[in-house]
């Protein structure tokens, strides 16, 4: 017997009888003998819940979590404090055991939180419309690129090398499949080279994609870039952002950005070894008919009562089939709920406070670490909560020594940017304390 399969022997017999069958195997007679698996699957036998739990605990204990170590890793995934309410709400099984809200009458809970999520993301980014989510920050960049190509009917995508490497790699994978061209813009002291960008943009450019704060944590000049991009009609200016940064930084929508995407993991979603996270997309209203993914709209029911439905579905794969601009169906529903609960719990003051406190801690760390001169800043540009450092020793060696002291050091930049030798990226958020930074400083100086 199995706890998730309720049939008794008597049930099975009665049901088979209704079908005029004697043996369960007769239900599988339609599978030809030459494709039938005539042996048992080579997997372990069923285990009790206790045995399963013990095995999973054993595996989990082989990992060192950031709650036991002090981590300075960022590079696209950040350790922010997640209030308890978030997990409690997403653990309500009316939410997590539901399907995509195709039956609005019994899905108003899901539909309404998506509507709230769209509202919050629109407000945070300063855009007209937001969709219900995308897989993650990297694929959101790609979806924005594809949408821009469909919007402008052009094939060239310009992307800055300060955009996180994974996003650029995923873009190249997709672009190859669709015969689109990806053109990368170089880096000038940690930010997008604006002269180069200016030379590259022309009437074949579908999109210009940048990230701010960029992969090095530096704030890009979106306003200036917008001027460059919009010299050409119908070219889409796409910015990938860290939503927490919008607690203090100017909103992309107020700086001329057409489409904002990003990784929403910072908004109440655990690190979880890289996923599931939360991609988001917000845009000016002229893009709404080309947007990928689900969109929830407000309407009225038969009795005139406010209600919510999936809307503008004629954009999507199940209707457009091969003419759809994206094959995305549903994607990060529950994580958009986590982000919604996080955003409303922190609210007007809290998102700003998280951003401010993280900035204070990060800049304190930057000042302290670079004071002695043993560790040097790689760039000299304004940053948010992440910064690049350069030393005389390989990052791997430093990180190994830090690990022995209970510290997970910064992200090794040299792997993706060989021009930056012995350099790494440190992220500091509101969860760090003064003593953490002071310990990092002393251990680091001991190593160097």
């Amino acid at each position, binding site marked *: 017997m199995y706890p998730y399969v309720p049939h008794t022997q008597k049930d099975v017999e009665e049901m088979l009888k209704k079908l005029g069958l004697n043996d369960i195997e007769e239900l599988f007679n339609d599978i030809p003998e030459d494709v039938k698996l005539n042996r048992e699957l080579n997997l372990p036998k069923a285990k009790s819940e206790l045995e399963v739990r013990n095995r999973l605990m054993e595996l989990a204990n082989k990992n060192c979590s950031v709650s036991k170590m002090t981590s300075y890793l960022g590079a696209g995934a950040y350790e922010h404090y997640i209030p308890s309410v978030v997990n409690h709400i997403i653990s309500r099984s009316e939410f997590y055991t539901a399907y995509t809200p195709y039956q609005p009458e019994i899905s108003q809970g899901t539909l309404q939180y998506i509507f709230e999520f769209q509202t919050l993301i629109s407000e945070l980014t300063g855009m007209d419309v937001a969709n219900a989510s995308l*897989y993650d920050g990297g694929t959101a960049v790609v979806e924005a690129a594809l949408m821009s190509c469909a919007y402008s009917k052009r094939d060239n995508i310009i992307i800055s090398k300060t955009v996180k490497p994974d996003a650029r790699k995923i873009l190249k994978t997709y672009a190859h499949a669709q015969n689109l061209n990806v053109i990368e813009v170089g880096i000038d002291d940690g930010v997008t080279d604006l002269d180069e960008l200016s030379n590259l943009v022309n009437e074949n450019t579908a999109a210009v994609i940048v990230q701010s704060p960029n992969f090095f944590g530096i704030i890009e000049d979106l306003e200036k870039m917008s001027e460059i991009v919009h010299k050409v009609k119908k070219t889409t200016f796409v910015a990938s952002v860290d939503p927490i940064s919008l607690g203090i930084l100017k909103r992309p929508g107020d700086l001329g950005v057409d489409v904002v995407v990003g990784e929403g993991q910072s908004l109440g979603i655990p690190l979880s070894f890289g996923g599931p996270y939360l991609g988001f997309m917000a845009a000016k209203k002229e893009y709404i008919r080309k947007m990928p993914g689900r969109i929830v709209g407000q309407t009225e029911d038969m009795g005139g009562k406010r209600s919510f439905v999936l809307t503008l579905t004629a954009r999507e794969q199940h209707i457009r089939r091969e003419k759809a601009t994206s094959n995305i169906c549903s994607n990060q529903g529950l994580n958009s709920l986590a982000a919604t609960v996080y955003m409303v719990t922190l609210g007007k003051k809290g998102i700003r406070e998280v951003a401010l406190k993280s900035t204070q801690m990060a800049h304190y760390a930057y000042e302290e670490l670079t004071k002695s001169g043993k560790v040097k800043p790689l760039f000299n540009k304004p940053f948010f909560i992440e910064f690049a450092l350069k030393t005389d020793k390989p990052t791997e060696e430093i990180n190994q020594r830090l690990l022995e002291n209970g510290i997970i050091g910064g992200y090794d930049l040299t792997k993706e940017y060989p021009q930056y030798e012995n350099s790494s990226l440190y992220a500091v958020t509101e969860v760090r304390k003064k003593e953490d930074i002071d310990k990092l400083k002393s251990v680091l100086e001991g190593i160097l």
Partner: protein
Amino acid sequence: MRNYDKLIFEISKPDRIGYKLPELDIEEKPIESLIPEEFLNKEELNLPEVSEVDVIRHYTNLSNKNYGVDTGFYPLGSCTMKYNPKINEDMARLDGFANIHPYQPLSCVQGSLELMYELQNYLCEISGMDEITLQPAAGAHGELTGVMLIKAYHESRNDTKRNKIIVPDSAHGTNPATAAMAGYEIIEIKSNKDGLVDLEQLRQAVGDDTAGLMLTNPNTLGLFDKGIKEIAKIVHDAGGLLYYDGANANAILGYARPGDMGFDVVHFNLHKTFSTPHGGGGPGSGPVGVKKDLVPFLPVPIVKKDNEKFYLDYDYPQSIGKIKDFYGHFGILVRAYTYILSMGSDGLKKASQMAVLNANYLKEHLKEDYYLPIDTIYKHEFVLGGLKDSLSDVITLDVAKRLLDYGYHPPTVYFPLIINEALMIEPTETESKETLDEFIEAMKNIAKEAKENPETLKTAPHNTVVRRPNEVKAARDIIVKYEG
């Protein structure tokens, strides 16, 4: 509190807070001294101000307007709405899994890598494939990855004239959308009268421009395509590859493997077959398995083992590249791994047996009042063509809406497109005979109501928090955010 009708923005009140953060233990500097003023937003964001109690009450009330598998029977065809075991949730939230950063040194994440390595092996065994990538984020993403792999295979052989993907007319819309996203043209072939691939049509459709065929087996009607070996031969002889959409894998665990049927690429939906929750529309996970010839093209990295140490292997020079940030939906992988351990080889087979038994049992009863276009043994699901006695103008939509009043989530309706007034029913193995009997009774009652009191159906549902929201209005007068 089903009548609760506020948006979170409507319960906001200035100066209320729902959180508390620690005080800074360093000297606070003016923000303008850290970040140049030109980058700083001077305006306040218009976000809600609510207390923690407000948040909990608000979203608890919203949850009461939802229906999940834990609420009741969810026979949504093609979606495999099986029970989501609670231990899966607990395991994914273990500190050692939930709180690890993707870029931690490998020595700090051996447990995660071991889990992924074993899951890769389990899925290879279940599918009969040679290697698996766990990266794809969802079914549609798995499909796209799979079709890109097919493309990379042909390109590596300089076989570049293959620009067409064949899809049966019963396929889900994602299949053609995916093939188009990978730069392919789509050829649709019609099903034969038994609902299976028409071999003659297939023979005529294939050629030296065929890149591949996308298929589910059992197909969208819930029928196992007996001609699968012949189908594979036709496509392979023409130089094309076979793609298996794993949407319906719950029917055949331990009975048949796509790898043995002749498929070259397969994706699984962990959120269907392997019990991870649908989450109200994600996050899911769509691992892709391939046969040996396609291994070199897999997206990187793949988890490997070397002398008891696990590592991420990026050494695939012909890889299609990356298709997702980091390594996939690890939190979902933990749940699926937990499920496979709980069920074991014996339990997975049992699951398929009972899923198929449940479907056929329902079919046998419901065909008395509903039209069953193809009367045969089904696998895990079956498709009805509306009410048998359609003298009234009651349509499938009305039946679905009336089921809401009886406390059920309706089946998938109007899909597949090849059956008029389709009702696609997939009970899954986690439902008891009692649940099925009650559902049968409800469906029979509805059939009776259709004759005696059709108006009750045309105006259904009557007991839900909202009733048939106006979709036309939503699409014409677009309101996609709260504007006060």
